[in-house]
């Protein structure tokens, strides 16, 4: 009689000869494993109550369900970050005159932990997030945790909140590192003290549409970033100003917005929280990161996977006309994954794109997800495995 989730998992692990393959051949396996796990979950609790948190794992969206523990680490303006600590998730205290509240001095990150079939937790290139936060911190005149400190904090958060990491195939634990000017400052200047926090929440799909194709709107009135601004780093200041455009697009039935460059208003930049790719034949183009666009880690990874698969991958200025003439369009981001775009509306024209199982998007997505969930062998050293 199977009594515990972990023993169930152990019984299903098979020796696998791993090659780089599409996810399709593994998905059936995952589905079986997942449904078996789900079955086990529904049984009256004879198993260890702490194995999983009490969540409806089949209906995870992207709402906030704070995991038990968060991580907090502080430092002064000229000092370094000292040892951080885990604590129960809860409110933090800030001075009303904190730099982050008055002057937007803050950067954040986004990464995910996945649960592998064998129970181990996997992180995907957390060192890249660490480096990106350092670059962002420097731009915003903040000290930042070292790469080791950052990665260690993320690992601690994943481990401590293990029961919030969804069962394989049901989603992931979204991890949100946040760096802010927490010290008090009156006149416009950098804060005298900084706080680094990491919290987490189990998530499923980012968009309401689930895994259905996205419908994007090309925004011509609002601009996400301008050359010289902070658009190229993950500063909190890039987000509130686009809420109005995003709300307007969503109310008109669109999933998200595609922003154009601030100067010519003709070149594609990115969506609200993901990068964008355009496929034409065997060529995959994406806007070059020249300071206004966030250099996504998913973006970077997908470019490498595509190149490995023999596509011609080009980073360049992508004119909006090229987008309207593409075969496929897809978005990439930690939160969104690799998401197919079904339509784009620009001015009064609405263009449809190829999507579906045979699409380039799906091929690339399968490889990325396979790597992230540990079903495809990680030959690039992108995966960090914990406990």
């Amino acid at each position: 009689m199977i009594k515990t989730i972990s023993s169930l998992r152990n019984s299903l692990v098979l020796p696998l000869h791993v090659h780089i393959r599409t996810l399709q051949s593994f998905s059936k396996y995952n589905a079986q494993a997942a449904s078996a796990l789900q079955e086990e979950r529904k049984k009256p609790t004879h198993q260890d109550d702490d194995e999983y948190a009490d969540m409806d794992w089949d209906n995870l969206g992207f709402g906030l369900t704070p995991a038990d523990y968060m991580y907090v680490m502080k430092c002064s303006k000229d000092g370094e970050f000292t040892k951080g600590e885990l604590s129960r998730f809860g409110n933090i205290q800030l001075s009303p005159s904190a730099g982050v509240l008055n002057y937007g001095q803050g950067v954040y990150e986004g990464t995910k932990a996945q649960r592998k079939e064998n129970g181990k937790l996997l992180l995907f290139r957390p060192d890249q997030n660490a480096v990106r936060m350092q670059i962002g911190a420097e731009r915003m005149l903040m000290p930042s945790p070292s790469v080791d400190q950052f990665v260690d904090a993320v690992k601690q958060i994943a481990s401590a909140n293990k029961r919030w990491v969804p069962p394989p195939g049901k989603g992931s634990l979204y991890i949100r590192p946040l760096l802010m000017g927490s010290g008090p400052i009156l006149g416009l200047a950098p804060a005298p003290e900084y706080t680094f926090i990491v919290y987490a929440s189990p998530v499923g799909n980012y968009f309401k549409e689930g895994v259905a194709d996205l419908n994007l709107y090309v925004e011509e009135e609002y601009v996400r970033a301008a050359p010289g601004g902070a658009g190229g780093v993950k500063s909190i200041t890039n987000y509130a100003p686009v809420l109005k455009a995003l709300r307007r697009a969503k109310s008109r039935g669109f999933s998200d917005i595609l922003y154009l460059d601030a100067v010519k208003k003709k070149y594609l930049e990115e969506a609200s929280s993901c990068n964008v790719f355009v496929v034409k034949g065997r060529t995959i183009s994406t806007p070059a990161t020249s300071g206004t666009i966030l250099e996504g880690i998913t973006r970077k990874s997908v470019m490498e996977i595509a190149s490995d698969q023999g596509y011609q991958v080009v980073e360049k200025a992508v004119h909006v006309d090229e987008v309207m003439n593409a075969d496929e369009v897809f978005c990439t981001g930690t939160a969104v994954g690799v998401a197919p775009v079904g339509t784009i509306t620009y001015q009064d024209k609405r263009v449809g794109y190829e999507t579906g199982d045979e699409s380039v998007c799906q091929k690339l997505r399968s490889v990325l997800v396979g790597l992230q969930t540990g079903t495809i062998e990680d030959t690039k050293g992108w995966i960090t495995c914990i406990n």
Partner: protein
Amino acid sequence: MALRCLSQSSTTFSYLSKICGFRMHGTKAAASVVEEHVSEMVGTERVDEDYADVDWDNLGFSLVRTDYMFATRSCREGNFEQGCLSRYGNIELNPAAGILNYGQGLIEGMKAYRREDGRVLLFRPELNAVRMKKGAERMCMHSPSVQQFIEGVKQTVLANRRWVPPPGKGSLYLRPLLFGSGASLGLSAASEFTFLVFGSPVQNYFKEGTAALNLYVEEVIPRAYLGGSGGVKSISNYGPVLEVMRRAKARGFSDVLYLDAETKKNIEEVSASNIFLVKGNTIVTPATNGTILGGITRKSVIEIAIDLGYKVEERVVPVEELKDAEEVFCTGTATGVASVGSITFQNTRTEYKVGDGLVTQQLGSILVGIQTGSIQDIKNWVVEID
């Protein structure tokens, strides 16, 4: 008696729900309760003004912890609860609050002045209230009504009366703050907002004191761009320019003058003030077309200048015009009307007339006179608090 409990409390948690027995209906009643208890706490009958223990002759622009702050929260429908005062101290926020993760916040800046006769004055507070409302709409936030805003500011000033500097020694700088305190994970507007007001006694904004400023024209990093949020007082406009300011200050400049993002040909404003050029009888300032903050000091100075017979132009100001100006000055709540002694653009440094008897000083002294109550307020710009 509620205030006594507050004053004896040693915790720094000071959020609304912890204040019991202090919610009063009717703002006048609230104000008088504060007044009464302030004097109770001080323990003397108030004959002379009671001042906080501050070196009034050496105020700069740093945070001084005052006694009280005002706070209120919105509910889902967007109305703000009647706010209340609490001891100045830390607030509690969910780590996933909209302001911390997505920069959803607006600030305001105002000053309370003490008149010679001891009465405390506010300058055009309704304009700050309206500006915050406009900003809130742009940033998908709910905002307090104009009345709630002004009431919150008044209560903060009254409760911190002893921190308003003696006449001529400075002012109590007030920082109303509106931010997304509700939590969310994905990018969206918060569903709960907090409106907070705190204050700090200040005098001169710049290290230079009242000496003329030296500005640097920044060509690479813009402060704002068309389609962005530069025209409202969003916190998102400030963090990204800290880097430019630091570089300029390291090279000996007082502050930075920004150009428009699209063409890099026209001047916009300084980090936290608007800018004016004077030539003969004409005063010119960049028009507020969405990228520039519509300053209240700016607006007031324009009106004072027109009253004095100057020709005032609000228009696009190409950077070339800097070298033809006779005088240049900045305006802002924190900065006041500040003379600019020089502006450096590329490798050229242009110097301007400074000192007494000039247009800058004329406009500045009228403004200050009105704000501090030494010049008659015929425009109803001044609000007496008590």
